[in-house]
């Protein structure tokens, strides 16, 4: 990055940076934008992600990107949707594992009789999220503990 020494000229900051476009971090990406990406971004205008635009806009505004363009909004919505669906697929894998194991395990037959339906449970989700680095383990609850709540140290 070109650190211009503070001078007397009062040109605005942006102009100084604009003189040297390669100085920004994004410079590499400017040239390296994949060819299909432009088409893809253009196609996004017709694509409707599951996550509504209003939702994404609201949270983007809260986190620093006020009034983004439609392309950006759709792109981020799509990315989030893919993220969530990846998690859900992992959880689905866990729950299908559980369903297939029902015949063998008596204990599972106690609570999941002959239900072959796919239900996303918190346990499956917790296992899936662990792989993504998110920990949603419920605190342990001991019923016989007079105070209730999590055990000390957990």
């Amino acid at each position, binding site marked *: 990055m070109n650190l211009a020494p503070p001078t007397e000229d009062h040109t605005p900051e942006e102009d100084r940076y604009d003189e040297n476009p390669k100085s920004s971090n994004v410079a590499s990406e400017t040239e390296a934008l*994949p060819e299909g990406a432009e088409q893809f971004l253009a196609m996004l205008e017709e694509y409707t992600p599951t996550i509504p635009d209003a939702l994404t806009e609201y949270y983007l505004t809260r986190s620093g*990107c006020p009034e983004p363009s439609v*392309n*950006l909004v759709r792109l*981020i919505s799509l*990315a989030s949707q893919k993220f969530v669906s990846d998690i859900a697929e992992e959880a689905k894998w866990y729950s299908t594992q559980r369903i297939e194991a029902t015949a063998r395990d008596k204990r599972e037959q106690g609570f999941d009789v002959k239900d072959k*339906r796919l239900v996303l449970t918190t346990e499956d989700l917790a296992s899936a999220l662990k792989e993504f680095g998110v920990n949603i383990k419920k605190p342990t609850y001991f019923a016989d503990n007079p105070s209730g709540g999590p055990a000390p140290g957990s």
Partner: protein
Amino acid sequence: MYADFFRGVARVAAAQICEGLGFVAVQGSACDALADVLVRYICEVGQITHETAELAGRSEGNVFDVIVALEELGQSIESLREYTADSDEIPFARPLPRLPITRRMRLPPSFAEIGEEPSPHIPSFLPSFPDKHTFKDTKVYEGRANDPRKNRLMVHKERRKGELALLSLQDRTRSSDATANYLTTDSRRWEARATPSNNQPTDDTNPFLAAPNQAPCNLLALPAAEQGASGRALALAHTGTKSDPERSSEIIGIPSLLDAFEPTLVASKSALPGQSASAQGTADATMHNLEGGEGGWQERIFMGGETEEVGQLKWRQGDHQSKPFKFSQCPQARRIAQAARNTAPECAEEIAFQFGSIGADDDEKRDRRARADAIMSGQVKGIVEDDSTT
């Protein structure tokens, strides 16, 4: 402000994504967790985008910043493209408005727009003053439907006025001799029009040639020998035209109510073709059969007044169409018979023929009758009470 709303929206979106993957159901807490993850992800992308843009000296993020952010979080454009190609497009379940919803403030019109001339110290481009009724006390006129009790009283009053009008009309048109009185004495309802009997019973005169007031009651006096509804009607007609002294001696003025009502009742029992089953219809039918004479119109009035009574009699019998009407069973039967005896004692034979022994022991039952009248008046409260005040 919208945090809860969008949290709910995120829940729905997460659930829809799961549904698209094949899940039949989602646990509530799992759905909440997924929604939280979703929201966090969006916020994270936005944050990194902004930081990247700031790093480049810009304040607003652009698409390159977003791509950088996505790469940091482990996604690429290629993978996204594959995702769009593979999976189906699932739009959000409900349309969402753009929040926050902005409404254009509606300014009050200025003086110039209204055309109002403001005071000289106020320029005309300023908004006009609010209407006087918003700050000044204006008279409030009482609406109509305020007091249900008052409304009811008013309804009764109106009804009574209408009845009085009808009664006065009948007073003016019908005869005021004994027989007419007998029909009215026992029912307080007809009190208002009870007139002293000062006329001679029309023994020898043709009712159609008699004074107008006397005609109606005579027409009601029919010999009991006639049979059939149409026969009744004809009898009604013929009575007027005949000037047979023998016959008219029978027609002293004791109306044969049974005969008078019978056309109505027979018609109601057996639906005679061409005649309506209602009392009114039959009375009118009988009226139509009357031949000419000046009495014709007056009878109609009288019969019209009586029809109501007939109707009431009929209806008090209950299912009048299934049971044959028995005059003796009628609640007014006794009173009518007694009144007949009171008003025309000289025609005891006729009375005995017409009414049999109904109400023969009137002396001991006179007080009972009075009590019954009191009860009746209690039932006809709205009309009777107002009558007493007039």
